[in-house]
């Protein structure tokens, strides 16, 4: 519009918030900011207004690599038949404790 034909809403960032000490960072959502420092501040104001977090990561959206929907079968199905990676796969002699 008007003066700002190639107008900018800044670049997009993805926000990850650690809800409490030691917890994994969780994706909270996205926002726009001109640079890293502003992205952190905006993340605080947009996604931590209700004491949702104690630490924030911001990452430019373009820096995120993602699997494609068509990758789903070859990426994830092969893990489906490898139950030997889970503890319940193994039968323990009756009466065993501490395992």
């Amino acid at each position, binding site marked *: *519009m*008007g*003066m*700002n034909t190639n*107008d*900018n*809403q*800044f670049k*997009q960032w993805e926000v990850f918030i650690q809800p409490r000490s030691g917890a994994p960072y969780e994706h909270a*959502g*996205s*926002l*726009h900011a*001109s*640079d890293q420092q*502003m992205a952190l501040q905006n993340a605080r104001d*947009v996604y931590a*207004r*209700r004491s949702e977090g104690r630490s924030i990561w911001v990452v430019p959206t373009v820096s995120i690599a*993602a699997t*494609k*929907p068509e990758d789903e079968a070859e990426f994830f199905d092969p893990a489906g038949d490898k139950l030997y990676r889970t503890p319940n796969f193994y039968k323990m002699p009756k009466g065993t404790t501490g395992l």
Partner: protein
Amino acid sequence: MSDEMMLKQFQSRIDNGEKIEPGDPMPDAYRKTLLRQISQHAHSEVIGMQPEGNWVLRAPSLRAKKILLAKIQDEGGHGLYLYSAAESLGIDRDEMIGQLHAGKAKYSSVFNYPTLTWADIGAIGWLVDGAAIVNQTMLAKCSFGPYSRAMLRICKEEGFHQRQGYEIMARMMSGTAAQKEMAQDAMNRWWWPSLMMFGPHDTESVHSSESMKWKIKVESNDRLRQRFINRTVEQAHHIGLIVPDPLLKYNDQTMNWEAGPINWEEFYKVINGDGPCNHKRMLHHIKYHREGGWVRDAARAFAEKQQETADTSIY
């Protein structure tokens, strides 16, 4: 994959209750409907800041001021979540704002009514947010992942919005004669626009059947509207407000409060730009968007300079 195959697979994913993610194959019409609906929803949140913002500086107590400001801030945040959900479909926020300014994208008509007294702030919270919550609770179950997730977060955060509005109305209804009069007047002006928020009757709705098939909507306009009416009529009576509908009556069989006919002529008039505040709302948005241009330019120029320095530094 043929279009027909894709469509069939897509429909079966929807029918199985799977959520569709942005990169997934989807019919063009699904993408277009979502883009239209999500951006319209985002614009509504943002334009909705204006009628309430009209009373922030005049809020009558410290408590009321904090609550109202926090609520308007939430609307801004919700607009932002929704813009992000739309962006996941490959449109820029810039472009969406451009469409809004060009009159190509709409926003909820209800925000084209003025907030004339403090009681309007109560009525908006209670009725307008109340209607929005009924709709949004439904949308949280929609088939598009980012929209559904945004809705979940929004519903959670908006938990207090309707209550604060009802509290304002309840306080005024137990106050002075002037306060009661203001509250009833606001009720009279906001009741019908709130019912219109659910859109045309199911028989008239142009987008509904496809949206239902694809689970963009999971309940019909009339059903949602009825749910809202049933809840709200009782709440109105509870604090002594009269619902401005002489034909309103309770049906013992269906256990529904049945409303009189909605003035659809007014609805379409306001949608098509001829409401009391359409021009004002749009002018405001365009004006401040333009005024912010130099700030955005400055921040971007700064970021570019920083980038250059970073690129040339030797660590």
